[in-house]
């Protein structure tokens, strides 16, 4: 357990010792800020709904960029050998890296708290959906981080890891938009697979165990996949 913590802390610190953290956080804030506030005053509504509607799509591209280096870089440089031969299990590595990235995503979300704070000066803000939205954002962020770690375990090339990660995350984000074209029986399954409906539920302020179980299973499956990939490399 302590090993997981040390790996997570190291990964988290690594983001800030290189320019990655600052670049990614800036891009994230510029993109969300622009898309959210450019239409905010047109709707004339004191809510964060549009921000949380936007988040899955932005996460689908930003998070793979955060996670792409986690394992690919180690495999490429060779430090993977050092990591694996230290007294840590492969599970420790997968979970540690995942937690490091997830903490970074949480830190990235912190500046956006300024949005609800400033909106609250403009009108009555319903706190429920906002708290729900942030919980949802953290769950969604961690699920995408797990997917990103998995993508990173597939290849030693970071760019390839990013593209695979973004492709999977983006599929999870938009898959429920094709519901229109599929037969009824399949529709409910596809809706369940997509991340959007679960995230939307939570960001309405409805915290349902089914949605939490969904995110937990995505995280579990992705990390298990990572474990299998690392095992395969042995």
């Amino acid at each position, binding site marked *: 357990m*302590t*090993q997981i913590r*040390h*790996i997570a802390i*190291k990964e988290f610190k*690594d983001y800030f*010792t*290189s320019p990655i953290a600052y670049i990614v956080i800036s891009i994230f804030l510029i993109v969300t800020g622009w898309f959210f506030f450019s239409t905010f005053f047109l709707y004339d509504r004191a809510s964060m709904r549009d921000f949380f509607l936007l988040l899955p799509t932005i996460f689908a591209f930003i998070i793979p960029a955060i996670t792409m280096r986690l394992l690919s870089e180690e495999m490429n*440089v*060779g*430090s993977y*050998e*050092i990591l*694996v*031969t*230290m*007294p*840590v*299990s492969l599970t420790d590595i997968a979970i540690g890296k995942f937690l490091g990235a997830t903490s970074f995503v949480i830190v990235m979300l912190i500046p956006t708290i300024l949005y609800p704070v400033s909106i609250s000066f403009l009108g009555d803000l319903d706190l429920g959906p906002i708290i729900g939205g942030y919980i949802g954002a953290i769950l969604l962020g961690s699920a995408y981080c797990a997917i990103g770690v998995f993508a990173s375990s597939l290849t030693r090339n970071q760019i390839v890891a990013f593209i695979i990660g973004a492709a999977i995350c983006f599929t999870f984000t938009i898959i429920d938009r094709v519901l229109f074209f599929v037969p009824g029986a399949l529709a409910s399954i596809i809706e369940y697979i997509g991340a959007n409906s679960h995230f939307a539920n939570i960001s309405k302020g409805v915290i349902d165990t089914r949605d939490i179980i969904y995110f937990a299973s995505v995280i579990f499956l992705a990390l298990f996949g990572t474990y299998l990939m690392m095992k395969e490399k*042995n």
Partner: protein
Amino acid sequence: MTAVTQIEVTNLKKNYNNFCAVDKINFKVKTGEILGLLGPNGAGKTTTLRMLTGFFEPSSGNIKIKNLKIPEDTLKIKKLIGYLPESAPLYHNMLVFDYLVYVAKIKEIAKDRIADKLKELSSLCGLSEIMHKPVSELSKGLNQRVGLAHAMISDPEILILDEPTSGLDPNQIVEIRKIIKNIGKEKTIILSTHILSEAEATCDRILIIDKGKIVADDTPKNLKKNAKTESYITLSLNNTNHDIDVEKAKDIIKSIDKSIIVKVENRSDKGVITFTIIASNIDDPMKKIYLAIKGTDYIISEFKKESQSLENIFHKLTTEGLQEVQQEDK
């Protein structure tokens, strides 16, 4: 020191798809022994070490380290081992100090002992000047030293070093060897190298590996002794008055013993002729050749015995297979 078997490897095998990198090797290592794995590139040294450290899983066979087995007890075994991978690939974006602290934490060294441990290692491996530098700015030799510190940080009982001196300059090599010798007094060390003088200088016992198989397993001294029956002698002769009759000179040398093989190695413009003499099973061939030459008017300009170095033995052992194959091809 008690000579207890600490590492026992039986029928160890590793396949990469269809390629067999390590083919059913067996060996034992005793506590406090420095074992050298020697072999040409691609012989299976690194693969063997990687299996010992739990980085690779063996295709078949057993590895037993102090009653612990791979793969069941890999995690426990990893705690016993300090490992320096080939060319020490460390985290480039970290400072040396941060890196070593991170490793110390992962290896579960008590918080209050980390500072002392780092001081001890920095004086042992000469790191005090570079503790505050990023790993990416280190030269190859310094990087290697940090790698050694990494391997030794938890006071492991077993140290596994993969090509610890590769890419270093001669001074650094001497330094690293000194460090290894020092640690080797208390710990079991397995190191791999393709440099023979290194194995000769540091190891108590040498395993020569070729194409995934062990072709020799002995102390450097014994390996040399067993190969001593043949001696290679270089002899250069000239004569100020007239050119040397090569055949006559050959006959003079051969008159000592019929089994001696004499080859002309080189003829210089100045009339110096260099012979290579291979003498098998002859006591003190140098003396006999000298006495034979003494009676002629030849001038000896060079006369030396190639010390039967490990180099020759190594070359012989690792190319024998090759020659057989070539002969079959013919």
